[in-house]
């Protein structure tokens, strides 16, 4: 399957984090179109719009006001229209319990928010590379789990 660019969405209430993420993704060679959201409700309202171009990958912060990342994840996995989305949890929590719970609820990727810009860029690049392959190769998406 041919693919020219990846559509990416990020929901994070922290302005600095959104800014860093945007900077990092722009420096990566893989072409992307990034949409930013400041909380889970904004993201979910967008995803269920009619005729919306769905992102291939969604990065979700766990702790957000109004609607948190876990609620979004559950709603996404319950909606048959959103079945093909890869969900990456992007969080400061590194508790094994949180990580396992998000995976069991259908997340594909868990990223601990890296401390340096360089690490952030490397993490996003790895996620995009893998997603590119999952979009274009016969790989089993049911078994797509990645922890960074």
């Amino acid at each position: 399957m041919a693919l020219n660019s990846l559509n990416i969405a990020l929901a994070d209430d922290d302005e600095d984090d959104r800014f860093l993420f945007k900077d990092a993704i722009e420096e990566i060679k893989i072409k992307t179109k990034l949409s930013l959201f400041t909380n889970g409700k904004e993201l979910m309202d967008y995803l269920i719009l009619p005729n919306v171009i769905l992102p291939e990958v969604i990065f979700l912060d766990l702790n957000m006001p109004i609607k948190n990342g876990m609620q979004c994840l559950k709603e996404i996995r319950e909606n048959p229209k959103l079945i093909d989305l890869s969900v990456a949890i992007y969080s400061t929590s590194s508790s094994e319990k949180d990580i396992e719970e998000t995976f069991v609820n259908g997340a594909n990727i868990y990223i601990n928010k890296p401390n340096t810009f360089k690490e952030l860029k490397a993490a996003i690049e790895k996620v995009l590379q893998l997603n590119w392959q999952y979009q274009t190769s016969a790989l089993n998406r049911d078994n797509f789990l990645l922890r960074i």
Partner: protein
Amino acid sequence: MYLFNDYTITRNLYFYLFYFNRQILRKPMKFNVKFDFNTICKKVLCQQLDDMNLDYSLNGIGEVNLKQSPNAVQMQKITENLAKFGIEVISDQQTALVQRIKDAVTLIVNGDEEAQKYNVSNYLSEKLDYSYTHLSNVFSEVTHMSIENFVILKKIDVAKNLIIEHNLTLTEIAFKLNYSSVAHLSTQFKKTTGLTPSTFQKIIKKRNDKVVPQD
């Protein structure tokens, strides 16, 4: 006086078995299937091409030879019909080559006997008739990943399926996928997924248990 002779006992027993069986049949059940993607894709492709009355032959890896070149309208129809099944007609040469590399890698990983005799680079350049340098450049340019990394990704994908569907031990999987040792497979698994094989297995099991319908 005999209250229960042999006949009544047997009859009662049948009665019970009958109802017991019906109870089991009424319960929901869940079973797993395993797909052979190559066979499925080939079957679907042939069926579609047959339906359109085309004279064709399949060229091994993802290539269709038409005896008569179709006009634009026919080609449009072929593309549309195949698209319904998620089969995409690739017009761009580079993308087509990448797809052929991927298909050849799939053969290697699935343990095709001919493929096992060579190392990956020799096999690919022989099979696709290009130098490995050329293949490798085109592949990274189009997919943003090296062929070597793709081979690893593909192998780990097969390993995941073997863990989940066949309950094989890591030792058995390492042998099946031609790893020099279990440790090597285990390290590569961790490096590719960020999870140990046992954590991976635990998570997928919990996830599958979650979606079983409750009675």
